[in-house]
């Protein structure tokens, strides 16, 4: 032990001091190498963010240039008083509630199973992950066809089992469920892969030791695997919530936010207000509110990953 410490310490010491200090001759080349990123970053991310907040205080329109007439907090007051705003917010949350639990639990379940199966890894990866790389438009086309009344495969399967045929995408109460099913099929693979990676980090001898002590596979899963996966699970949940909140594509293509606006998400509300009603000021205010919500959840994610980094 001591010899290791002795050989390591002289190298560690100078590194940690240079970590803190600035070194002469570094600043100019560093800024040159950062410049391409920082310029694009300010132009297309930071700038638009600030401009969005500014726009939200004016009654701007897409048809005229400039910010428009100053309106103070008028846009925010209107948004918070608007039933459409709240229903879009609710649809977004409802979609998140419907998709997050299955996307986390099923992905974990599949990963636990896959971890116990020695052969066919490539096949499972293909089956579960392939949908994730498909464009949303392709996924939407495929599932519209599966959900087609009378001749769609899913409708056929349900009626074969003697159930009444559900109006998958046409009924306001059911449409969101159908979109959730599609989304689970589409994006589960991503979480599956994250869980598989987490499982690989659990030391094998833990299982061997517990198995010698007479632990059943079931006990191993509940007492060893799940507790040791905590960090991965937390990460997957936060990433999933952020991804689900930002939903737009599936609704836009499969239901256009209908029937009767029952599946209009927050991003589509912003899209409709800004690009159909041309009220950019109001759309900016709605965006800002939504922005703050996603930002808050993303902060949790960053705190989680930063802490993880520090452990290594």
């Amino acid at each position, binding site marked *: 032990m001591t010899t290791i410490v002795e050989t390591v310490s002289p190298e560690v010491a100078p590194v940690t001091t240079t970590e803190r200090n*600035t070194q002469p001759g*570094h*600043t100019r*080349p560093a*800024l040159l*190498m*950062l410049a*391409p*990123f*920082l310029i*694009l*970053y300010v*132009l*297309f*991310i*930071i700038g*638009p963010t600030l*401009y969005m907040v500014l726009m939200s205080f004016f009654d701007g329109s897409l048809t005229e240039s400039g910010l428009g007439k100053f309106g103070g907090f008028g846009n925010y007051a209107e948004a918070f008083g608007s039933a459409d705003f709240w229903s879009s917010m609710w649809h977004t949350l409802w979609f998140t509630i419907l998709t997050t639990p299955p996307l986390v639990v099923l992905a974990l379940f599949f990963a636990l*199973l896959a971890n116990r199966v020695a052969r*066919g890894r*490539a*096949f*499972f990866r*293909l089956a*579960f992950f*392939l949908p994730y*790389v*498909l*464009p*949303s*438009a*392709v996924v939407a*086309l*495929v599932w*519209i*066809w599966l959900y087609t009344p009378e*001749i769609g*495969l899913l409708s*056929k399967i349900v009626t074969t089992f003697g159930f009444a045929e559900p109006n998958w995408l046409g009924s306001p109460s059911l449409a969101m469920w159908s979109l959730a099913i599609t989304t689970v*099929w589409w994006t589960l693979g991503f979480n599956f*892969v*994250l869980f598989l*990676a987490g499982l*690989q980090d659990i030391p094998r001898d833990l299982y061997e030791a517990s198995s010698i002590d007479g632990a059943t*596979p079931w006990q191993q899963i509940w007492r060893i695997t799940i507790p040791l996966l905590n960090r991965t699970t937390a*990460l997957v949940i936060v*990433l999933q919530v952020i991804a689900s909140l*930002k939903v*737009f*594509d599936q609704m*836009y293509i499969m239901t256009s936010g209908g029937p009767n606006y029952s599946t209009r998400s927050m*991003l589509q509300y912003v*899209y409709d207000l*800004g*690009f159909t009603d041309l009220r*950019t000021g109001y*759309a900016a205010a709605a*965006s800002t509110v939504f922005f703050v919500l996603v930002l808050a959840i993303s902060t949790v*994610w*960053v705190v989680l990953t930063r802490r993880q980094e520090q452990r290594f």
Partner: protein
Amino acid sequence: MTTVAPPPVTQASIDRRTKLFNRICAGVLVAFAIIWLVPILWTVDTALKPNAETTETTWLIHHPTLESFRTLLAQGDVWNWYATSFITSALTAAATVIVASMAGFALSRMRFRYRWLVFWFVLIGIMIPQQVLIVPQFREFSAWGLLNTYWAVILPQIPTAIAVFIFKQFFDGLPRDLDEAARVDGAGFFRTYWRVVMPLSRPVVSAVAIFTFVWSWNNLLWPLLVMSNPKLMTIPVGLATVQGTYGIRYADTMASAILGALPLVLLFLFFQRRIVEGIAGTGLKG
């Protein structure tokens, strides 16, 4: 089951139990994997039928045909969409890799003034959801007259803060001796970055490039807004826009879905391992 006393637990019985358990696991997993493949198989099945036969809802194909693919490819729009998607995604991926790796190198290797400030400034970017910025970004591009140009699709997708941190993290893990040696030999920072560090960073370069390419290819909302000219649409925008116009020609619709998915499916099959390891190693998500 009820009256027999439990047998003594031996190593052999544990092994047998574990083996049985694993076999059940495999069975359940195979069943789910097949369920997951059904929509894809059904899509291929439908696309190979003549349009008139698709209303029968059967896996059997009486008259297999590539007619749908032929019609679509002959119409020509698909080729334009492919071109736009390829050009914008490839340029976005290349630019992201270059720009983000340089920034990551500076943050990882150089001790410059206000380093902490730049660090936090870029970190904020990870938390900003780009999709929420469509209204101000659209105004920006329309003011510059860049709507319906490749620039409008490419530029806002390049500054990905998360990519900077993925590169920084990877560079942090590389031994410093090599680039210190290069520096002692008189190589400047840029030379060290380009000649020493980047050649050692193939795995992370390919992971970021592939992911940026896939996300850019699959992006719908932003290209939908800025590419209204049908000749300049990307694959997802084109598919989403024409989705209604095929009507009940289900075979044509499924063939168009397959054509839209094909490049990414090939990419996935070629780089499967890279993609999966990339996700596992970085925990990134678009």
